[in-house]
């Protein structure tokens, strides 16, 4: 005779395996990026630097 399932285990049947905290706590692997994507991300870095400088100057200036 098999033991009745534990109430917690029965409930957790409603979750997908990769939804469990034990699974989502494991980091996903880093993406392997192609040359074009890497170039695009460098362009994004440039955009962030330039716009950050402009926005910080605007923000600080407007506070005064």
């Amino acid at each position: 005779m098999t033991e009745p399932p534990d109430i917690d285990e029965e409930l957790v049947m409603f979750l997908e395996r990769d939804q469990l905290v034990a699974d989502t706590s494991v980091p996903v692997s880093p993406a392997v990026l192609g040359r074009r994507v890497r170039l695009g991300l460098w362009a994004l870095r440039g955009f962030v630097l330039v716009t950050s400088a402009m926005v910080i100057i605007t923000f600080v200036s407007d506070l005064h």
Partner: protein
Amino acid sequence: MATGEAVLPPLGSEDLARSQDRSRVVDARLSGHRLRLFWLLVGPGILAMLGENDGPSMISYATTGATYGLGFFVPFVIVTFAMAAVCQEMAMRVGAVTHRGYGELVLQRYGKAWGWFGAGDLLFTNLVTLIAEFVAIRVGLAYFHLGPKVAAALGVALVLFTLSGGRYWRWERIVLGLAAFNGLFLVAAILVKPHVGTLVHSLTFTPLPGGSLNTLLLLVASTIGATVTPWMIFFQQSASADKGMTPADVRHGRIDTVTGAVLAAVFGIGALIAGAALATHNGGAINGLAGAGFPAALRRVAGSAVGTVFALGLIEAGAVAILTISASTAYAAGECIGVTHSFNSTWRAAAIFHGANIGVALVAAAVVLIPGAPLLSIALNANVLATVLLPVALVFLLMLANDRELMGRWVNRRARNLVAVAIAAFVTLAGTAYAVDSFLQTIHAIPS
């Protein structure tokens, strides 16, 4: 439901709470109760959209209406929410398929630098936006002769109250209940008795607002800024994962997102129409968050009921935004630090998550109480700050939605990608133009 055959890992209270919610979804799906299934699965989309119909946005819509009338902006608000729906659908889908939040996926897939930049910028932008939300509540409460301390206490008390349920489901339902009162702006619009012919005519994008191209660009950018924001992406993806959504729920997630977009557009247009009642009464002079006079001006022009409803609407808009924006901050903090980040977790297990949720609201409330703090400048710059993060957030959202390793068959289709890339390019262009224009005005390179 794929856990049966294997040995289960240790289960926590978060797993159990989520599985209880999922059991109701599975029951509703198996028994064919469509309305119940819809009721169980709506939430993150509506909250993201109505959360973005926040205090500053509604004042911005009313200001636009008071300054320019209805033409152009009524259909433009509809277009911007359609764009927001496309972006938010991707966030929902990535969350439902991967069961992970936006912050952690960017950090793990594309490197710590991008992850921390996103979270850091989000934290700062959210803090500034939260200050603006407390100011909006203050504006609404001032109509009822209540002061800033009441506004600060109300906002923080709401955050504590919604967290006290200890479950994502309870948090979501309380905030959804509050968000329903965003409909007060529609009530205000009906009460001002707009001319139906003018409203219908405005759907043709005419008349265009007067003034220079520069002015039009700023108005367009600020309207987009009131509709598509980084915190919404962080929030909807993380909330979809926290709710326990799966690929089987993507269709309902789409319905949730589109429902939210429609409601937000209707209520936003409601604020625009209410504001337009002041267009012939020097309403354009009541601008920005200095627009503490909006409810009172509406009372004078359209009666006390309109003023009262508009003031209550501002309190609601600020309150719901405080709850959703604080939550997005907490998700981002927990995900990037790599600790438990769920409303389903206990305070002890998710101390950083709950601490960030309360802490960011407390700091914003404290700033509002500082005598002489430059609240107006802070509030007006909230959208400018978001312009740096928004293009980055959209680029990584697109990359995640196209990541076949993560998304499998749920990756963006070609047509969706074309639309999404066009939207991201348009939003980035408008936001960047806004940031550049503000900067050039600051250094007096162009007249302000």
